């Protein structure tokens, strides 16, 4: 195989549009180089290969970015969904607050609602910034990422009974998803950190959702397999009823079985108090995410 034919093969590493524009000239230039260098020397081919290895990936990446409209559309859709998520979060917090205002509002409960609203407002802000494509659009997105980390730490200190998974899902996932989709124009530590956060949060979602299934609580009861199966089927159709009790320091979820269930399961106590971690998450944060993954 001649040197020129081999170089033509190497040119396939470049994007097709670039090859069409400059391929002929590159071959011409390579031919000039061959005339003035020793083609049989290792150094010559090392330089040629090094040149292709350095320039082809960069040009491929530039061509991909120039042609890629899919990512732009995905980013816009993700921003709209995230904005809706923020609106739903605020609406849920309002509903939760109105429902809870009949009882005694404890400090931690108030803080949970406030933190949830704060996170939702940040989501809204970041989504609007990306949709408007402003010059400063990146700044709110960065602020949202930092704020989500602050919220995570604050929630850890204020609500030690909350599970890590629930906190990650509640505060981190939406923001991390948004930031990672808001692709940085250049490789940066910020972009890499966003992707790592997205992976961590994304991987924690299935585990957190699995924890949240009401049917899982029955495995702790002294029941036969048939009774467990029956309970799982029924539990899937019943939501746990959240009852706030002024006497307790934390909110607890209580499963109140139907009269039929009480009759069929003698071994079960009438009221089973569940302390699964996800039930203690502010429900307005979790309730709008659960349908997405279940």
């Amino acid at each position: 195989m001649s040197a020129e034919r081999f170089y033509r093969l190497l040119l396939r590493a470049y994007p097709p549009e670039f090859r069409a524009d400059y391929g002929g000239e590159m071959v011409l230039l390579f031919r000039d180089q061959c005339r003035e260098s020793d083609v049989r020397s290792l150094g010559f081919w090392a330089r040629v290969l090094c040149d292709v290895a350095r320039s082809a990936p960069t040009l491929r990446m530039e061509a991909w970015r120039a042609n890629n409209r899919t990512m732009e559309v995905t980013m816009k859709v993700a921003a709209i969904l995230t904005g809706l998520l923020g609106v739903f979060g605020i609406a849920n917090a309002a509903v939760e607050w109105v429902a809870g205002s009949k009882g005694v509002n404890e400090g931690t409960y108030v803080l949970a609602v406030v933190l949830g609203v704060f996170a939702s407002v940040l989501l809204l802000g970041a989504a609007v910034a990306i949709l408007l494509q402003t010059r400063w659009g990146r700044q709110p997105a960065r602020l949202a990422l930092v704020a989500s980390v602050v919220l995570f730490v604050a929630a850890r200190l204020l609500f030690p009974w909350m599970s890590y998974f629930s906190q990650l899902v509640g505060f981190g996932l939406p923001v991390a998803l948004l930031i990672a989709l808001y692709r940085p124009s250049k490789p940066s530590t910020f972009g890499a950190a966003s992707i790592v956060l997205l992976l961590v949060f994304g991987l924690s979602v299935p585990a957190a959702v699995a924890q949240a299934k009401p049917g899982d609580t029955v495995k702790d009861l002294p029941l036969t397999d048939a009774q467990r199966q029956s309970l799982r089927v029924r539990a899937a159709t019943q939501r746990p009823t959240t009852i706030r009790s002024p006497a307790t320091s934390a909110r607890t979820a209580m499963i109140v079985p139907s009269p039929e269930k009480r009759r069929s399961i003698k071994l079960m106590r009438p009221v089973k108090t569940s302390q699964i971690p996800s039930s203690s998450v502010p429900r307005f944060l979790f309730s709008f995410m659960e349908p997405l993954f279940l």
Partner: protein
Amino acid sequence: MVTKRRAGRKPEAYLPLPPATFHILLALADGELHGYAIMKGVAARSEGGVRLGPGTLYGALKRLLDAGLVEQGGERTDPERGDERRRYYRLTPLGLSVARAEARRLDALVRAARRKKLIGERPA
């Protein structure tokens, strides 16, 4: 890396230029040149320190064309080589301004280095 052309950008907005890009602009400051002449000019000016391969050279030229710093000057045969038709490139007024701005920037750096006595008063 030189980014795509944006209306009304000042020459300073393109700085600092990558060394290979500045070398190409310097080579084209002499007039219209084809790819191989640019490559030889850069190698001679840098005393072999900067060697542009075909991929690096045409990748940089494509970016400079996209940014509006360089334009194509037509195709013709090289009187010295006299074989095939080659595409010629030349600087645009914006490209010349950017090259001047980069030269001023580097000159200021060299003067600062002289004041700090990092290099001598005259080039060795």
